[in-house]
């Protein structure tokens, strides 16, 4: 009798148990889907500008976010790419690309300010003023951001248009397209275009 009773209980619980298991699986799938959509603790930035003041702002925000434990992605495109250049190379370029290369700054040192630049005097003045106030220079700020693990991606399309080769840019940076940016931006809590 006892053995029969146990069997009867087992028969009754098995369908309930499998229904429960199915429900758990469904919930698990929903949680996974939600997790895939929910933002990470990430900040994504497009650095379009090649102005000293704007690029500086971008790196201040990037270092601050990285210091606060956020993952940070910076996508440099168009004029922003000039901040990542480390040398001027003319070989293998069209006339227009050569002209573009000659007329745009090489690296952060060469960037001008967005207002009152006066042929570079404004930029020198701003740097001096920052030094007086104990603010790190752009180069130090960028170095610090990289040490904090900020991801730096150069836009391949802009590089192609401007004729910039990867060898002309800072070492250790990545190259990617709009999908690289969007991939990080859609997972970010904050996105900025600078």
């Amino acid at each position: 009798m006892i053995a029969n009773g146990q069997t009867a209980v087992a028969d009754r619980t098995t369908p309930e148990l499998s229904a429960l298991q199915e429900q758990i699986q469904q919930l698990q799938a929903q949680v996974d889907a939600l997790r895939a959509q929910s933002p990470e603790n990430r900040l994504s930035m497009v650095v379009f500008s090649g102005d000293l003041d704007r690029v500086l702002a971008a790196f201040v925000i990037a270092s601050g976010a990285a210091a606060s434990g956020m993952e940070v992605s910076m996508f440099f495109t168009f004029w922003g790419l000039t901040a990542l250049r480390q040398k001027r190379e003319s070989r293998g370029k069209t006339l227009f690309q050569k002209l573009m290369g000659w007329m745009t700054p090489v690296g952060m040192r060469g960037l001008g300010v967005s207002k009152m630049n006066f042929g570079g005097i404004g930029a020198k003045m701003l740097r001096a003023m920052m030094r007086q106030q104990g603010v790190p220079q752009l180069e130090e700020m960028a170095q610090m951001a990289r040490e904090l693990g900020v991801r730096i991606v150069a836009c391949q399309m802009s590089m192609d248009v401007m004729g910039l080769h990867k060898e002309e840019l800072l070492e250790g940076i990545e190259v990617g397209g709009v999908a690289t940016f969007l991939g990080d931006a859609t997972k970010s809590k904050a996105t900025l275009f600078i």
Partner: protein
Amino acid sequence: MEIKYDVEVDARGLQCPMPIVNARKTFQTLQSGQTMRVLATDPGSVNDFKGWANMVADAELVAQETIELDGKTVYVHYVRKK
């Protein structure tokens, strides 16, 4: 205010974002339950450390105070690692 701390970060004379960048470096070396004290002369650091502690999951802003030190106004932040 008498608050015990284990490590001190001297960020006096440094501007944004350096106080939090330096604080993070030291914070990473703290053991759970330890407290660090950050000295800063940047008035913005008062709000910065509130925001920073909100963002860093295992950081707790225990106290903040303003003191006069060597003839300068110094903003002191106590952060405990949870």
